[in-house]
């Protein structure tokens, strides 16, 4: 339909510029990245009502990835192939008025689709399960046979309901993304804080916002979650015993783990070493301002890291370098982000020094920091920025859409979750690491402090 309109405008001779810009805008989202087309799968029987959800999930995952360009479905021919036996080998003869044959694989590399890769398949119901057969082919005319053009073909089995169709769609999309260096988010989770029961409790959900469930039931204030790199433990701060104290839970079982809290008015903000065996946290154990301490994972073998005479909170250990630490410090006045080693030496400020910089979060490769900064705005009006740690160059990812804070990196390094407060309600959002494709994951109550948890190892 869009093509018909576009061609009509072309005939009229007035639409060239706008049509050109529209297509350029789509194609150039990730310049130089492969162009991938995936047809809408069809399904029979009990799979039929679910296949639309499967298709939408695949398309959403591919569209939001910075690793490839997803060719919009409006460009596809109407009767696409559904299985390998539909495909025809060979290359269209050179011609000026060639008509695309949807079943000839290499024709998908021609305009208007112009795809480097074609995903196709079909779904259905088998013995009470939702089943999807998914393939990926290269459309390059230089590949001599269909067998050689096939990148993969797999069967995706899931429960025969909406949840199963979404799950199968995510897995098929992850397999496609894996061909282009994408690390799958399947199995990763987001721990967060929600007040939907009336008090702040720790919750966990799947990375796409599904399966939200409550981990704590203290009816107190439980907040500031963090997770061990092995994906097994969530640490948080709770007022359940009267004072802000650290507690560790197994994410899967919800079982409380032993942690010895220092006698202090405040113990909070746990970060784990890459091997998940040591923690660093903030405590007023020595009196005076909150300072950083390291301890074993049970709270024993305590040793002090900072002696700054100023507030030291939010320590974050580099996931690729167990001796490198950043935190938020008041040593130069308003909160700023500082870097130091595990002995508290080699201290330097890495945020610009203007406004308030807070909530640092390491990227999985340990080379970038996402953080919240009031740059250019009144106190309290935070936006999310990403800093290249080596050069300290920053890029702004959100712009004044309310209050944006607590960024956390997805394990694929290509997405960020964060809390955004628009009006009176705070919700958890996800965006690409370049700031595009922002969308909310939560809507009930207030939800904040997301922490993206690695798939369990």
């Amino acid at each position, binding site marked *: 339909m869009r*093509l018909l309109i*576009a*061609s009509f405008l*072309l*005939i009229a001779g007035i639409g060239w510029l706008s*049509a*050109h810009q529209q*297509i*350029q805008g789509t*194609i*150039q989202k990730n*310049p130089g990245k492969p162009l991938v087309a995936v047809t809408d799968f069809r399904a029979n029987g009990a799979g039929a009502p679910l296949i639309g959800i499967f298709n939408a999930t695949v398309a959403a995952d591919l569209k939001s990835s910075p690793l490839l360009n997803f060719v919009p479905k409006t460009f596809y021919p109407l009767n696409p192939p559904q299985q390998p036996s539909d495909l025809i080998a060979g290359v269209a003869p050179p011609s000026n*008025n*060639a*008509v695309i044959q949807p079943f000839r694989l290499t024709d998908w590399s*021609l*305009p*208007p689709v*112009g795809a480097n890769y074609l995903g196709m398949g079909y779904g259905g119901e088998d013995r009470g399960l939702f089943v999807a057969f998914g393939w990926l082919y290269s459309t390059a005319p230089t590949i001599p046979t269909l067998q050689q053009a096939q990148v993969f073909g797999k069967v995706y089995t899931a429960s025969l309901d909406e949840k199963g169709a979404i799950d199968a769609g995510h897995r098929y999309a992850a397999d496609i993304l894996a061909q282009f260096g994408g690390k799958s988010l399947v199995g990763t989770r987001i721990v967060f804080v929600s007040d939907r029961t*009336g*008090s*702040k409790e720790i919750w966990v959900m799947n990375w796409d916002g599904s399966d939200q469930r409550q981990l704590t039931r203290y009816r107190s*204030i439980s*907040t*500031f979650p963090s997770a061990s790199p092995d994906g097994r433990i969530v640490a948080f701060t709770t007022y359940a015993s*009267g*004072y*802000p104290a650290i507690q560790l839970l197994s994410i899967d079982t919800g079982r409380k783990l032993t942690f010895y809290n220092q006698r202090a*008015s*405040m113990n*909070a*903000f746990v970060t784990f070493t890459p091997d998940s065996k040591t923690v660093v946290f*903030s405590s*007023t154990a020595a*009196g*005076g*301002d*909150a300072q950083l301490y390291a301890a074993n994972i049970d709270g024993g073998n305590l040793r002090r890291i900072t002696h700054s005479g100023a*507030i*030291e*909170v*939010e320590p974050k250990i580099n996931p690729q370098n167990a001796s490198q630490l950043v935190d*938020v410090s*008041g040593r130069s006045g*308003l*909160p700023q982000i500082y870097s130091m080693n595990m002995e508290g030496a080699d201290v330097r400020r890495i945020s610009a020094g203007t406004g*308030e910089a*807070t*909530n640092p979060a390491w990227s999985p490769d340990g080379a970038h920091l996402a953080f919240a900064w009031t740059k250019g705005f*009144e*106190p*309290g009006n*935070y936006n999310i920025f990403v800093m290249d740690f080596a050069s300290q160059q920053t890029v702004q990812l959100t712009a004044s859409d309310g209050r944006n*804070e607590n960024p956390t990196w997805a394990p694929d390094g290509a997405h960020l979750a964060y809390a955004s407060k628009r009006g*009176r*309600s705070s919700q958890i959002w996800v965006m690409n690491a370049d700031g595009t494709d922002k969308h909310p994951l939560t809507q009930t*109550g*207030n939800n*904040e*402090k997301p922490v993206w948890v690695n798939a369990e190892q």
Partner: protein
Amino acid sequence: MLLSKNRASLALSAVVLILGLSAGCKKKVAPPPPPPPPAEAPAPAAKPVINYFTAEPSTVNSGQPSSLRWSVTDSTNVTIDNEIGVVSPNGRRGVYPTVTTTYHLIATGPGGSTTADATVTVSTPPPPAPVAAAPPAQSVLDILAHQVQDLHFEYDKSDIIPADQPLLQSDAAALKTIFQTDPNFIVTIEGNCDERGSAEYNIALGDKRASATKDALVSLGVPGDKLKTISYGKERPLCTDPTEECYQRNRRAHFAATQ
């Protein structure tokens, strides 16, 4: 490179389409696809429901306690006037009215707001017998509630502001009276912050405010072993308006009886 390829491909597709369209003039045009089903209207957000809002007992003598109890569902913000402020959706609060008072509960949610009232009637006690001339002894809770007042702070600061020095002196005197009256009484100093800084930093800042308040009181002779400190950061605001007046109210050290 990519650009010129696109332009070439666009031109080619235009040619294909023009041909296709002219061919379409002769041949039967394919029927248009069926219209998409109408979008489902989103369910209207429910208005908050106030399950109950009561005062028990509803009639008290002046200064005697009454307990407000409430339960609200589908709300994002629940406030009660008469200086109670923002409260959780389900809760109770003791009040000590000296005159007949009507409390208004306002529950706000995505679907609008709902209000309910609860009135505590203060009955006039019979006139005291002429012989009972001695003033009644005040309880330590009364002194804490009425004579020990909150101290306030500047943004990101924890020093006692000079204007609060007289307040600090009177707080110290009242606290000394409390501890002389009841040597077992313990007071907790609660440090609080406004909503602008990060929640993380504010926990430490509230702790610093509570400690600074304790240190100042101890320097005025209040026994330090009777004072505990805790920080609520910005987790327990008195108000949630984005105004300097509200920020100022929330940047405070509050005194509470230790449970």
